């Protein structure tokens, strides 16, 4: 296994480079961005120029700076959502996988969660609460956990049937021991795939919600950039305004997808 992990496909490295690069741009936004993206640094709708490489937006803010800061938001939200939802999924999945009583209750809850239309929840919540970044993270996490929780549960159930778990039980292993020593290590591929999927989904959904104006438009994110840009489509500013944002979203999602596919392919090969 240790030797195998070094042999990763080219897709993985492309994906890692993309995701890592964008992450770096986001992290270094305060240093890379030529302006404070909230300050008015030009006339509204300025075309690209030396002062504003991508021009300015409707509020006279520098689009390039917005792009960096927006990436930061998108990445923060997606990473936080993926981490939070997978953590939640892990706890629920393990509880359900380990205890039949908890399983019955939790599966009901999961079914209930899955049957609720997500967008409706967002709209309802956004009516009464400002969907700022922390709230968005919590809300997305709450929507994202049931599916991986189910996957984790079924992975645990199948691990439970493994002979090596039976063997450990034969030595008198407790549920706690089995969970930490056997169930969780066996979850690695599921967790990884779930994490990457949620990263991807979070980037998309955050952008989508912001685009629709459901989330807080004063937050600089790729979605809010699209939200504002879409109001001025007739001004023909898509090349310097929409295209860079769309490219950002596309490349991020592509990066995550490539990593996910490479890892998934590897685990399939490993099992064969």
């Amino acid at each position, binding site marked *: 296994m240790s030797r195998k992990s070094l042999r990763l496909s080219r897709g993985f490295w492309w994906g890692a480079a993309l995701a890592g690069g964008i992450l770096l741009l986001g992290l270094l936004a305060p240093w890379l961005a030529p302006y404070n993206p909230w300050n008015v640094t030009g*006339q*509204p709708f300025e075309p690209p120029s030396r002062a504003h490489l991508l021009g300015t937006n409707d509020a006279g803010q520098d689009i390039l700076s917005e792009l960096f800061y927006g990436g930061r938001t998108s990445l923060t939200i997606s990473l936080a959502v993926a981490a939070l939802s997978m953590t939640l999924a892990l706890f629920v999945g393990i509880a359900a996988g380990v205890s039949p009583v908890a399983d019955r209750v939790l599966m009901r809850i999961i079914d209930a969660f899955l049957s609720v239309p997500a967008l409706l929840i967002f709209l309802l919540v956004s*009516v009464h609460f*400002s969907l700022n970044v922390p709230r968005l993270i919590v809300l997305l996490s709450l929507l994202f956990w049931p599916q991986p929780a189910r996957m984790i549960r079924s992975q645990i159930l199948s691990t439970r049937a493994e002979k090596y778990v039976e063997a450990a039980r034969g030595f008198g292993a407790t549920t706690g021991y089995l969970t930490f020593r056997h169930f969780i290590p066996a979850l690695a591929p599921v967790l990884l795939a779930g994490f990457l999927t949620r990263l991807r989904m979070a980037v998309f959904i955050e952008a989508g919600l912001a685009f629709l104006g459901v989330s807080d*438009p*004063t937050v600089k994110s790729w979605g809010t950039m699209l939200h504002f840009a879409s109001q001025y*489509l007739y001004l023909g500013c898509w090349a310097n305004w929409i295209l860079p944002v769309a490219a950002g979203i596309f490349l991020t999602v592509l990066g995550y997808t490539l990593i996910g596919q490479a890892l998934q392919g590897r685990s399939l090969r490993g099992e064969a």
Partner: protein
Amino acid sequence: MKKIVRWGMGAFWLVFLVLSSPAWAKPLNIDRYVIGDRKDWGFPAPYFHYPRGPGYLRMSMVFDTLIWKDAKGFVPMLATSWRYEPKRLTYTFDLNPKARWHDGRPVTAEDVTFTITYMKQHPYPWIDLSHVAGATAVAEHRVVIQLTRPYAPFLEDVAGSMPILPRHIWKGTTPQAIDRKKAGIGCGPFILKAYDAAQGAYAFAANPRYYRGTVMVKSLRFQKVNDPVFALLRKDIQAAVVPPEAGALLRRKGYTVVSSPTYWVLKLLINHRRSPMNELRFRRALLYAIDRKLLVKTVLHGFGTVASLGLLPPQSPWFNPNLPKIACDPAKARELLKAFPRPRPLTLLAPGRFSRAAERIRQDFGRVGIRVTVQTMEETAIDAMIQKGGFDLALSGHGGLGGDPRILNDVIAGDFLLSERFTEDPRLNALLKKNLEAMDPKKRHKIVDEIQLIHARQIPAIPLYYPMMTVAHDGRVPWFYTRGGISKGIPFPFNKDALIRKKP
């Protein structure tokens, strides 16, 4: 990605339309005319439409009032003539005997007295009848309305705004219980044919027996559209309010584009009952901190003006031009804020559509050391929080500034949803009271000037800007701007009188 494809297709359509654009004709009779809007505004009947301008506008196509306004002022509608008798505090209206309900029954003085009684019993949010004692039908087509006290805005607020209800339909029923099909029967120039709330679609047909003249549009529709500019370019609609920024493009495409004052103001509501906003010094600091010029430039892109601190816009005949004009001065703001070391962070409630303004205010306040957290939410939720007083700062706007200055009473101290609820200044309270009673225009002017001045000095809210309204249409209908806005100041040009060729 789908969006981009759609935009791309839109762009293609745009090119296609430019190439295939025909020469616009101006026929006298129009078969079909669609006005686009971004929302649904409720069933077009009294009590059922949403209590905002566009909702009233749709209702007004079906229901007529006693009098109406055109570009110059009051014109007859159901009432052919009217007169005020100050001693008796009565208004007498002579009704047009040709007026018929859509079901064919004649409109009589009984309908008017019934409407007043009914609306006093079942308050209709658009009309305030607290100053009306009652009405008497003195003849089949003559009605006398008795006021309880002098009430200056009566003609505009009641006679020019109150839709007359058909007594034979509404009698004995309540707005909750009435049959929806019958509730749509009025005596206006259009007959309601269909309404679809989900689609935001209204279909009106010309009333062939309209008592005031010929209705020029056979089928008038209001239709919800996602993007009015593209809808216009696609010829899905013939008229719509459009973003001012699109004006140039549409003009190039041959549309008639008219900009006009909206009599609408965006205000920064300040919860002056909470600390530290309860101190005038702090409110003044806020005023100095905001760069309202920059706001007009970046949020309105120049299509608007910085608001007068007295609320009424320069276009209003009641505008006070001698108010202090305060420009952005961060240094001054910081100076004033020295009395407030470490002010607590403030929350700014903002509907999504004002998020750019919220962003700017956050930046401006941040510049002088006031931390602001923006919370964007649905407008109705913000309205509710404003009403409960559960806020620090809020962005909220209202119209009605073009009409009777009674609006100042509503928005400064009244119980109106978005009122500033400023009742701390006794002098202002007295002036507001007088404002409603002064029947002498000269006297009233003085009062209104004073009210504006006090508002500018006390700053219970900061008027930010007056946006312009831009309407684009295909030019076939001679839309015009109603003096002071339709009814109590609705700023749209879609006055139904523009569709009627009046009988001489």
